[in-house]
C-alpha cells in the first residue's frame, strides 16, 4: 500500500471529507512524528509501535573505493520498535 492508496481508503470511509482534507490529515500525522523525532522526542502508539531516535557517535570511516580515511560525524537515526499487539497480529493465523 502506498500513501495515495491510504488516502483513498480513508476518503472512501469518510464521504463527508474532501480528498484534500484526508491528504492533509495524513500529512499532519506523519509530519508531527518526524518533527517530534527531530526534537529528540519519542512517539508511542500503543498497539502499533514506537518511534524514537538513537544517536550514532562520530567515527572514522573509509572510502571503500580509495581506502582513504574519512571522518564520519555523529548522527541521529530514527528507530522503530513494533508494538506487542502488532507483532502478534503479524503472526496470527490468517482467515
Amino acid at each position, binding site marked *: *500500500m*502506498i500513501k495515495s492508496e491510504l488516502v483513498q481508503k480513508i476518503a472512501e470511509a469518510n464521504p463527508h471529507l474532501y480528498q484534500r482534507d484526508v491528504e492533509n*490529515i495524513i500529512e499532519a500525522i506523519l509530519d*508531527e512524528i518526524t518533527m517530534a523525532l527531530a526534537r529528540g522526542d*519519542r512517539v508511542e502508539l500503543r498497539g502499533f509501535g514506537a518511534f524514537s531516535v538513537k544517536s550514532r557517535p562520530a567515527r*572514522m570511516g573509509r572510502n571503500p573505493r580509495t581506502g582513504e580515511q574519512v571522518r564520519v560525524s555523529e548522527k541521529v537515526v530514527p528507530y*522503530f520498535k513494533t508494538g506487542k499487539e502488532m507483532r502478534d497480529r503479524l503472526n496470527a493465523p490468517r482467515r
Partner: protein
Amino acid sequence: MSISRRLLTPGLPTNIVEIQMDRTAEKRGALMAGGKTLTRADLSEVVYQKVGLSRTESAALVELVLKEISESLARGEHVKLSSFGSFIVRSKGRRIGRNPKTGEEVPIEPRRVMVFKPSNIMKARINDGKARS
C-alpha cells in the same frame, strides 16, 4: 569518565576521542531536553489544529489511519509512505536460539516481523541543525 573512554580506545588519537566525547555529551543533553513521549492524543491535537475537524473526529481519524496501516501490514503487504518511510514485513526462518540465562537451546519458529525503513528525507530532517563537522 573521559579517562576510561580514552583507555577503551587506545588506537585513536587523543584529540579525536575528545571531540567525540564533547559531542556525545552535548547530544545527550539535547536528547534529554526533548525526551518527551507523544501519543495518539498529541497527534489528534495536531490534526484538530491543522485541519479544523472536531477533536472527536480528529481522534477517530488518527485511529483509522493507524488501523488501515496495521491491517495492510497484517495482510503481509508493505506500506510505503513517501517522504516518511516504509514499513516492511519480513519472514524469518526457523533458527536455534538460546536462553541467555540458562544457556539452554530453544527453537525459534518461523515468524513474520515488521521493520521500519526511514526515508532519506526523514533522516535528513532529523539530523538537520544537529552536530555536523
